[in-house]
């Protein structure tokens, strides 16, 4: 059974801080790892990672995958209050079709 573990489960920082969110996984026949941001109810897509060592970047957010050690990190630099959300990590395996297995998420709170 596919498994995703995220840490920390919650994090409180001040505006301007840099944060690193962690995601470790176990999946049969890895296909991809995805990061989503969930502010209210609908998760919104951030990154899809399929290859080790290649950083994906979007503004102040970046993510990288290590397929040997089976983990990924999501970095947010110069955090803003609008970054407050739950960040979800999910993995997709070839044997599970397009099914995503999600972690519990990291609740990030950015205080002014």
């Amino acid at each position, binding site marked *: 059974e596919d498994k*995703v573990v995220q840490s920390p489960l919650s994090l409180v920082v001040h505006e301007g801080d840099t944060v690193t969110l962690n995601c470790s996984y176990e999946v049969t026949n890895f*296909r991809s790892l*995805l990061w*989503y941001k969930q502010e*209210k*109810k*609908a*998760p*919104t*897509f951030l990154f*899809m990672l399929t290859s080790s060592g290649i950083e994906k970047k979007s503004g102040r957010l970046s993510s990288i995958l290590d397929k040997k050690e089976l983990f990924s990190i999501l970095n947010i630099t110069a955090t803003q209050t609008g970054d407050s959300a739950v960040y*979800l990590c*999910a993995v997709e395996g070839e044997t*599970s*079709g*397009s*099914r*995503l*297995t*999600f*972690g*519990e*998420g990291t609740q990030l709170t950015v205080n002014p």
Partner: protein
Amino acid sequence: EAGVAQSPRYKIIEKRQSVAFWCNPISGHATLYWYQQILGQGPKLLIQFQNNGVVDDSQLPKDRFSAERLKGVDSTLKIQPAKLEDSAVYLCASSAPFKKLFFGSGTQLSVL
């Protein structure tokens, strides 16, 4: 591009009552998913459709939950009878084959 549409946004029912949720995916997306997200947890897949056929319903509690996608477009998820532990956000998502998922805004269900 229109997103994934879900209704209702909120529903409050008493235990043992029945409830139905509706989802209209992004036009052209053949794959449709229903996820259950209990407070503080990541989304858990209930059922996955490819067009109007079921791909994966291994985590659907079939004694009380049912879902259909008759014409390969919109879908309904039903719970009958509801239990207290069914209180959750029910998220619908859609995707093109082997592409990222797009989520709807979800239905917040409270079972009293």
